[in-house]
């Protein structure tokens, strides 16, 4: 990260923070709508396809406005349409955006990890073609990374790319792509060599999502959301110029890609207004649920509210603290997994607290509201410990890469990937 981001205050012609703040504030006041308290708390997903497409269009529009105002891609180089500014500028923008609409759908995974990966591993031509388009909101990127067979073992990708002259033919399936049905491009990991060990036969490609040969299925989740997708890729042709990194060297690209995914909580490459809730449970939600259930006078319920607020406060500090520790070198970059683990276990606890606060209303409710929301969230509780890499994987990273404990034994080292035991297909 340090290599990518300008030093804070280290570059002579970097705009000073105060004037940047003034510029950001005046743009926001003139152009962006203030959200109501209800909108601020709500999950950004609309739950209705037509409304969702309208929201995507609005997000693209705001992204374009930010670009035109010199407020898009704060930490991206100027050569590719970014601002060449520092993480401190990004923090100022996040502060100034608090309480306003912002283009939530152009952030994760579009700006990071997708665009950052292109920035780090792409050719000059690829960067010039795609990065400005991404920053203008014209291209929306998704990660074609996980596979039905794989889960956390990303390097065990079965999607295959076979070379055919100066192009490649891809076949396979990818899963857990958020909003692939309204996105434009996929950053895709594929196997290009089955006769070498797992990590040495992978290559990264970019491909347009909406083309014959890619079938996008939407997956219904326990809470009714249909934003996650699975793609079936059949004989999709990708020119060799759309390959990122060297052939069979995709794992070095993916290592950085996954690093940026873990760093999302403190990333200077995405915008998230201070105080963004996105339907996550927090102390106010727990309080409202308890109030609606008429349980506010119960001292035990008050304590649950206090615990929720405590966790919220600690969460804010942990992200910042670990980010600073990595920047100062006190902890290595892999320590980003500490934030992932903390956020996972904490979000799970907050969801439990909210469900507790609902009392019996959490089992059977008379009208759709706080209590039913807490029940549905509780049903989905583990999602926060799974998505973006499971907490078990985070614990492996922390123990092995931060604390330097011995790596787990695997059966896929030093053998051709085609000989590595794998799940039976029906167990996908």
């Amino acid at each position: 990260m340090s290599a990518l981001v300008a030093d804070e205050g280290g570059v002579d012609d970097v705009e000073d923070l105060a004037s940047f703040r003034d510029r950001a504030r005046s743009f926001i006041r003139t152009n962006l709508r203030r959200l109501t308290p209800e909108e601020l708390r709500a999950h950004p997903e609309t739950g209705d396809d037509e409304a969702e497409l309208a929201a995507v269009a609005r997000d693209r529009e705001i992204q374009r406005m930010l670009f035109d105002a010199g407020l898009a891609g704060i930490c991206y180089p100027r050569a590719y349409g970014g601002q060449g500014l520092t993480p401190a500028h990004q923090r100022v923008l996040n502060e100034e955006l608090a309480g306003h609409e912002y283009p939530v759908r152009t952030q994760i995974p579009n700006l990071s990890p997708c665009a950052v990966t292109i920035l780090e591993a792409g050719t000059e031509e690829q960067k010039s073609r795609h990065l400005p388009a991404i920053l203008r909101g014209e291209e929306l990127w998704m990660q074609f990374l996980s596979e039905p067979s794989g889960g956390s073992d990303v390097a065990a990708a079965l999607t295959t790319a076979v070379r055919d002259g100066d192009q490649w033919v891809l076949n396979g399936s990818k899963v857990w792509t958020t909003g692939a049905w309204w996105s434009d491009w996929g950053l895709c990991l594929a196997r290009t060599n089955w006769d070498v060990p797992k990590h040495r036969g992978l290559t990264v490609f970019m491909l347009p999502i909406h083309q014959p040969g890619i079938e996008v299925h939407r997956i219904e989740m326990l809470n009714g959301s249909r934003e996650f997708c699975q793609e079936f890729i059949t004989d999709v042709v990708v020119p060799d110029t759309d390959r990122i990194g060297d052939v069979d060297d995709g794992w070095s690209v993916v290592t950085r890609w996954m690093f940026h995914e873990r760093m999302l909580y403190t990333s200077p490459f995405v915008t998230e207004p201070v105080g963004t809730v996105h339907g996550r449970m927090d102390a106010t939600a727990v309080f409202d649920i308890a109030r609606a259930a008429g349980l506010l006078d119960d001292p035990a319920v008050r304590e649950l509210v206090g615990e929720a607020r405590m966790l919220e406060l600690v969460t804010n500090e942990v992200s910042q603290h670990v980010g600073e520790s990595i920047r100062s070198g006190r902890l290595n970059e892999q320590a980003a997994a500490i934030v992932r683990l903390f956020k996972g276990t904490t979000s799970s606890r907050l969801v439990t607290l909210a469900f507790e606060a609902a009392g019996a209303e959490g089992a059977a409710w008379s009208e759709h509201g706080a209590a039913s929301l807490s029940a549905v969230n509780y049903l989905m509780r583990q999602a926060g410990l799974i998505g973006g890499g499971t907490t078990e994987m985070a614990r492996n990273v922390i123990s092995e890469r931060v604390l330097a404990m011995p790596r787990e034994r695997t059966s896929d080292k030093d053998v051709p990937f085609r000989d590595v035991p794998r799940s039976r297909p029906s167990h996908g």
Partner: protein
Amino acid sequence: MLMGLSDDQEFFRQTTERFLSEQVPPDALRALRDDPAGFDAAYWRQGAELGWTSLLVDEEHGGGTISGAGLEDLSLVAYEFGRHAAPGPLVSTNVVAAALNGSDTGPEVLGGLVSGQQVATWCAPVLGAGGWEPTVEAVRDGSGLVLHGEARPVESATQADHLLVTCRQDGGVTQVLVPVSSPGVRVTPLGTVDLSRRFGSVTFDAVSVQPDAVVGQAGEAAAQVEWQLRLALVLLSAESVGAMQSGFDITLEWAFDRYSFGRPLASYQALKHRFADMLTWLEASRAITGAACVATQQQTEKAAELTSAAKAYSGEYGAELLQDCVQLHGGIGVTFEHDLHLYLRRVIVDRATLGTPADHRRRIGALVAAKEGVAA
């Protein structure tokens, strides 16, 4: 805390670290088990010379800071106290010094605290369902006051020369500085698991107090008491973080060195994941304590909830972490000869002092309710 330290602060921290390593190594702590005072007077005076008791005191009273932010400097000492499970009334002496620094009362006592010649402690209120509640009552008697009641636990009560007593008085809060030798004051030692920290119960049986012993304005000390509590919560949390760090370091080393079934403990995934959780709790405790320290130093409006969050979190997970360290050691972890229990003792006592994690969760809950316009 312990982040972005200036060179002077780092030098200051290292000086205390070196001094404690030399003066109170684990064997010295074990030897304190049956020592009634729990610390040596000469040790405390030397610590005072290093700055342990002067950081919350203005220069005109003989104090001074390292960085301009005295509480942040002092939190480094508290962290090292936790790391070494060090003896000495760090929290109580500093709270009293900070209180006297802001008043005209007891300048000679303040001088004695700064030089380390004297020890003073705080008869603090207790944290109940409705907030902080003094357990000693002050009643007007002519121009003076008469005190009744009991305060417990009071740190270093049997070693203290003076007591800062927080009293309720006619619906208000009054603080007075009382010599321990005053007629009607009785100090009874209490038992504790900490080897190097002592507590007592202090009873006040019609103790007469002159008007010049009042610290601040009679009946109007509530805000001052709240500030003292925040100072104490920050220091206790910083101590817990230090004790967590030592427990973690010892156990991490053990995991690499100890072999079972031909493999180091550090190679077992079931144990590796425990270390990942422990490191996460440690960094989270460090983060929230640092934020509470800065907020209290700068007296921001978030200081109340941040100090309680730091105390609740470091109290809960400090104890969990040390207990897990014991578990990862196996039988040796519950023996007196091993060093681990020194830090376990410290986090246990810090956890239960000035409000348990549950007390502080309720306090934060009340703050949320107040913000939402609902009475506590």
